[in-house]
């Protein structure tokens, strides 16, 4: 568990931002904790960037309040807030060199030239850019620009670093590498990071907690594992990773969980942890199950808690994994099953009849 303390650093209470009749954000309530890596995840237009800009002070909420470090931020301009931003475009000042860019904010404080130079060198070392101070802005690669932008924010020693899709401009390899580095850096310096991203994988890898946003509202706020294992709504479930949805009907509710009839798989009792706190039996019509929670059983009768018959209708080969599309004999939409390509397991052709194994504890019931 990375967050050093459980003390809140940013409080958002009923934060609303409208543009004319359009609600960009609707009554957002959240507390971001000191030292945590917090992600705002959602499709474009969900309000995540608007929220980040409200925290940075580039925009004011229509109603509601934001406080940082216990101080209300209403009427406090961006240049007076204890936050620093890494922009999506990086916003490196093109007429200044790397050292001047990183030291830009320090010149507004009462520091001597030597102190600024020392701070700048320290910040550059933090992002692995020692000795790059004299480089001109246009001589930097995409990854280096990103690091300079980060150093420029970190050198200010802000309470919170805001990152607006900082990796979206990088190619995949570099992005994967930066995700790990950024996470490691955040953990070593212990400053709160708030990341805006539309990439669920990125959010899962880097964050302590994630707020999934749709249409100006937080749909779910949880740790990556909770979010993946128990998405509260179908929408969250399909946004984070792949989820198979199967029609189901409510049977009974008891101390050991909720019993449902899954049309394609049969009757099952879902344990309390995978069931919404507030349950309305009348609205239950679907369950969810992740592709890796389904297994295609080999002919030599692998043990499985439960099983169902079906046939392969499609395969996607990924090298380490194969994703099968399987039509279950019991009906419903075809399900996706991911299988690790271990030694001795060959890829099944389309049309193969298969037995699908699954367990009751992997089934999710939605609100």
């Amino acid at each position: 568990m990375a967050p050093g303390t459980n003390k809140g650093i940013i409080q958002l209470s009923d934060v609303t931002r409208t543009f004319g009749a359009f609600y960009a954000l609707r009554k957002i309530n959240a507390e971001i904790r000191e030292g945590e890596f917090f992600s705002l995840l959602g499709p474009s237009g969900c309000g995540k960037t608007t929220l980040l800009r409200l925290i940075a002070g580039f925009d004011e909420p229509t109603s509601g309040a934001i406080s940082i470090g216990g101080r209300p931020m209403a009427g406090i301009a961006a240049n007076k807030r204890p936050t620093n931003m890494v922009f999506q475009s990086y916003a490196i000042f093109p007429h200044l060199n790397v050292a001047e860019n990183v030291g830009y904010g320090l010149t507004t404080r009462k520091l001597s030239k030597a102190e600024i130079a020392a701070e700048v060198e320290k910040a550059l070392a933090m992002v692995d850019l020692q000795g790059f101070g004299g480089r001109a802005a246009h001589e930097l690669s995409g990854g280096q620009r990103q690091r300079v932008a980060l150093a420029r924010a970190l050198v200010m020693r802000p309470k919170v670093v805001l990152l607006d899709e900082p990796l979206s401009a990088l190619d995949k390899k570099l992005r994967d590498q930066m995700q790990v580095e950024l996470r490691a850096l955040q953990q070593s310096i212990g400053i709160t990071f708030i990341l805006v991203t539309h990439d669920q994988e990125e959010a899962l890898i880097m964050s302590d907690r994630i707020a999934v946003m749709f249409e100006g509202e937080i749909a779910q706020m949880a740790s990556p594992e909770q979010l993946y294992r128990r998405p509260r709504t179908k929408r969250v479930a399909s946004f984070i990773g792949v989820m198979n949805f199967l029609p189901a009907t409510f049977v009974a509710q008891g101390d050991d969980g909720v019993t449902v009839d899954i049309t394609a798989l049969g009757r099952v009792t879902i344990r309390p942890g995978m069931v919404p706190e507030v349950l309305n039996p009348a609205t239950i019509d679907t369950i969810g199950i992740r592709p890796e929670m389904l297994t295609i059983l080999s002919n030599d009768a692998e043990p499985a808690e439960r099983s169902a018959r079906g046939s392969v209708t499609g395969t996607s080969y990924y090298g380490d994994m194969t994703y099968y599309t399987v039509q279950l004999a019991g009906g419903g939409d075809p399900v996706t099953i991911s299988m690790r390509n271990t030694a001795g397991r060959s890829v099944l052709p389309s049309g193969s009849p298969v037995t699908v194994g699954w367990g009751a504890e992997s089934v999710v019931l939605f609100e």
Partner: protein
Amino acid sequence: MRGSGRRGAAKWLSVYAVTYMVFLYAPVILLPLFAFNDATVVAFPLSHFTTKWFVVLWQTEALHGAVRNSLMVALSTAVFSTVLGASAARAAARYRFPGKAPVMGFIMLPLVLPEIIVAVALLVPIMQMGLSLSLWTVIAGHVLICTPFSIAILSSAFQGFDTSLEEASLDLGETRLGTFRRVILPLVMPGIVSSLLICFTISLDEFIIAFFLTGTDVTLPVYIWSQLRFPTKLPSIMALGTILLALSVVLLVLAEWFRRRAARRQGIEASVTGGLV
């Protein structure tokens, strides 16, 4: 067959281009030619080389007054037009407001209006209002025709300006004024210099508006026109023209150099006109 046909067309095109250049620039070349010619009559054949017409210029008091007037008008015009142009270019690039397109079109209109129309249109209300004609009325006229040029030059600088640079500066604790001084101004400065130079040049050699709107103080082009009535003055006018020609070319080259540098700084491909003219 096709190849040779294309080569033929290319040959004719180059002939056309050369002829075009000769028609356009030959008269201009006559200017320095006769400025250094030792004869009061402007005609071929040329006689000896001389610099005496430049000496005559040096000794003409009325000319010096006209030069002073022109410099004053051109400098004031350059400053006013660039300030107005910068404000308009930034507003156009940065803000959305009702009636933006017609407003901008209206500001750019003097670019295509015949100058004589502008001159007469300004003269009538100035007379009606009972204002006396002076160098200030000339400056007003010149600002009107120079501002569109200034906007055209500066809008490429402002349009390409990444607003997140401004936000980054604010985010790093700098004030709005500090942001303007440390980020915006340095990045658009080459465009500003280029605009000052172009407006200065346009104002310096503008005749029609200066002729209509000036009182007893004449600008250089108006002075030149008045001297053309005296045939003996012609060679010295040629000398004056030569100086002005050299000065205009230098200023325009400088202006374009600054404009391209501005575009390059912001990483914009330097098109010749910035897309507006």
